[in-house]
């Protein structure tokens, strides 16, 4: 009887640990793949904190352009940008390179990460949204 209760205690501890591990892994990072893709394909220019580089490269953190141009983001990511834009009142005219190797799913993951990182509160974007928005820039 005594050994049984001891065993029960061990199981309870393991259950608590497992629950804690699952809970933290679900809670802390909803867009993990998006973050990894961001680090690989975007961070060199837009930087880890999303603040980019002075007046040379536009910020993503707290960017009005990002929120107002959700419809254009998939095309901007896939084909890059050549036209000047205004972000938070500042003009930016540098060229953004294309990211042809990102799939539609990956583009959705990156946008969802950017939309929610650094205090941003952008909408959720689905794979279908990305497919639809990419129709505009099909060549």
């Amino acid at each position, binding site marked *: 009887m005594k050994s049984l209760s001891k065993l029960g205690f061990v199981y309870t501890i393991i259950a608590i640990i497992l629950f804690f591990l699952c809970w933290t892994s679900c809670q802390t990072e909803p867009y993990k793949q998006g973050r990894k893709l961001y680090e690989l394909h975007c961070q*060199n*220019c837009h*930087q880890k904190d999303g603040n*980019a*580089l*002075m007046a*040379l*490269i536009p910020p993503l953190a707290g960017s009005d352009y990002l929120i107002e141009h959700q419809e254009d983001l998939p095309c901007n990511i896939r084909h890059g940008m050549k036209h000047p834009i205004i972000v938070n009142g500042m003009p930016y005219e540098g060229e953004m*390179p294309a990211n042809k190797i990102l799939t539609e799913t990956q583009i959705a993951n990156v946008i969802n990460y950017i939309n929610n990182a650094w205090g941003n509160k952008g909408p959720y974007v689905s794979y279908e949204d990305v497919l639809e928005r990419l129709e505009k820039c099909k060549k």
Partner: protein
Amino acid sequence: MKKILICISLILIYFACAEPEKPLIPLGNVDYVERTENGQTLIDTVYHTVPDFSFLNQDGKTITQADFENKVYVSDFFFTHCPTICPTVKAQMLRIYNTYKGDDRFLMVSHTIDPVRDSVAVLKKYATKLQIETDKWYLLTGNKAELYETAHQHFVPAAEDKDAPGGFTHGGHIVLVDTKKRVRTYCDGTDPKDVDRLIKDIKRLMNEEFK
């Protein structure tokens, strides 16, 4: 007695494991040159130095080694159309700039490796957008071969490469040079922790050079 021994060994282990600050020994080949003075043969240690150069800065002014007299400086190599590591290195260079821009003994210099596109006017625009002062941070352009040679003299790889993104391949190093034009240390300009270390090394070098 036993307790004392344990204490001593713990202290020893601590000092053995604590990372000591590495001395900033000049990098590169070392020559030993004999000379005679008052009938005595002396041996001088000669370190690698960055040879003189002549480039134009973002204001179109000619910059040579003379402009670095009595200055400690950091140097990097980039190009304005660089789609890869350059913005990250520039963001880290900005941290160094903001730490030491008030210090007259310190200068910063970034050389383009794409002088065909990066004219004085292009560099001027870049500097304005980076919001840096010309007399604190030179952006240099000039003869392509001389720029590449200067990179190599700073031990930074730089080359044209059609297959590389943007058409050039180069290292993201930030190199620290002393008042005698000797390369004293460098860091990986894409690694903020390594840049933290360089920021400390700059201060150490200035303390050593301007006693």
